[in-house]
């Protein structure tokens, strides 16, 4: 398992891919810094950026770039047989690939997410240690990002295995389902990874993040969010495993 994990890390850490990911992940921070220095009501505006930029766009995009290629590139360049023709259980391959995607996805998002939260909630350097106003919202952002990365990674990794157009399909899914449909129909929030992330941020982050993504108005409990995200993760990892076991390897 460790061998596949380290192989996947090397596959996914090509210079060009990492530069693109870092640029994507850093974009919300740049915007947050601009907002902080250009406006007075910067906290609420940056909270808006958390939803519209970080959670709605950057998070799924960063994960999609990594997860759709974790197995998808192996299929495309026909190197999948190198790992499948070895005495390694298929679930270990899926687990190793998934773990690599989650770690590589979380790393830039967590770093830039924390910086962005700091820009939003820390009044000055002295206030950084304030639990309710700074540390708790940062923990909320972190937890929300973890929930989103775990769920999106499973969905997009499966997508990468079943389609050669996985990145495009992932973007369509994010725009249509997570953006458009979940924005219009309240019920879809129960089945939306974006909502899971936002609700987690709101619930864990406390008062400062109550308004994020307008989720304060929803009645979805944190337990349901964790259960929903875990279900998404388990179902799509299982689908990936089934596909890997049953597919004809090119």
């Amino acid at each position, binding site marked *: 398992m460790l*061998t*596949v994990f380290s*192989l996947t890390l*090397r*596959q996914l850490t090509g210079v060009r891919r990492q530069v693109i990911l870092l640029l994507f992940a850093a974009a919300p921070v740049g915007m947050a810094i601009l907002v902080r220095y250009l406006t007075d009501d910067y906290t609420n505006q940056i909270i808006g950026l958390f939803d519209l930029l970080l959670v709605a766009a950057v998070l799924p995009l960063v994960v999609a770039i990594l997860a759709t290629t974790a197995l998808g590139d192996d299929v495309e*360049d*026909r*190197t999948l*047989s*190198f*790992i*499948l*023709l*070895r*005495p*390694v*259980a*298929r679930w270990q391959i899926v687990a190793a690939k998934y773990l690599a995607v989650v770690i590589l996805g979380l790393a830039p998002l967590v770093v830039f997410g924390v910086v962005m939260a700091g820009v939003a909630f820390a009044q000055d350097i002295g206030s950084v240690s304030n639990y309710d106003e700074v540390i708790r919202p940062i923990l909320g952002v972190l937890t929300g990002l973890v929930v989103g990365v775990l769920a999106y990674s499973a969905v997009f990794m499966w997508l990468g295995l079943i389609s050669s157009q996985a990145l495009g399909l992932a973007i369509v899914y994010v725009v249509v389902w997570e953006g458009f449909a979940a924005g219009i129909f309240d019920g879809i929030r129960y089945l939306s990874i974006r909502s899971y992330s936002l609700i987690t941020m709101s619930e864990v982050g406390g008062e400062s993040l109550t308004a994020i993504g307008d989720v304060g108005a929803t009645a979805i409990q944190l337990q349901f969010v964790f259960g929903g995200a875990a279900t998404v993760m388990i179902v799509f990892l299982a689908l990936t495993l089934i596909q890997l076991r*049953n597919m*004809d*390897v090119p």
Partner: protein
Amino acid sequence: MTTPETTMQTANAHNGPEPTIRVDNVSKWFGNVVAVNEVSLEIGPGITGLLGPNGAGKTTLLHMMTGLSATSRGTITVLGQPARGDTQLYRQIGVMTEHQAVYDFYTGREFVEFSARMHKLDDIPDAVQKAIESVNMTDAQDRRLSTYSRGMRQRMRLAATLVHDPPVLVLDEPLNGTDPRQRLEFHDLARRLAAEGRTIIVSSHILEEVETLADNIVLMVSGKLAASGDFRSIRELLDDRPYRIRVTSTNQRALAGGLIGNEAVTSVTIEDDGSILLLTHDLPALQIQIATVARDTGAILQTVEPQDESLESVFTYIVER
């Protein structure tokens, strides 16, 4: 002459009591396309050449033998176990696919080490060194795979296939991209491995490539098992095939008349375009006779072209017999 077995029958490409690989009435189709059609065969220790033109179904059959693809119908066992489903079987099989893709960021040695680690070998450095030495790539082992020539990549892929010392080797077009010296080295290595009692399957679309290598031949054409047996019997079939020669000259009628009844000529046909199509079983004799007849009839030869010499036509001829 040994009569090769034909489609629909079980081909026995081994001499021992228990086959290493047993393919039982296997078919594979993709939608409406039948890639492998009711193939049955048994393969035992030694080198077996899986021969056929491109698109004959060789790779599909090998993929099913190695568990990479499921059969649409029929069963395949390797060492008595189903070929697909149990990953532990890969401790016993070394597979080299036809695709040349490798992890370019690895050095040759790292690539073989990767394979060794996947097999959880006890003494990885020793196994890696032996595998690399066996393909004569020691000098280049620390270079990145991206800098290798096609032939060098093939050899390092072969080293990664051999690193766990498997009793069964499945090699799909292993000589692609190799030069004549590398082919000779591969032949030596394959014979040495076979002499140790291994079962080795080597696929190729080039007849001559496996002629001097394989003990047995399995011939596939259009997804079907066309023939199998030792190479001599296949070669005799090929030698029995009439050659088709197209001839044009300044006096076609006179030349055709002179060739009729010639002992080197099986049949003479004047085609719609005016050219003469000759069938012969004795090509060297015809080459002499045609010049003599042309001189005697006063015809000046313009073209003498062999027809249908593609590998496809050679294989198709065997199937149609």
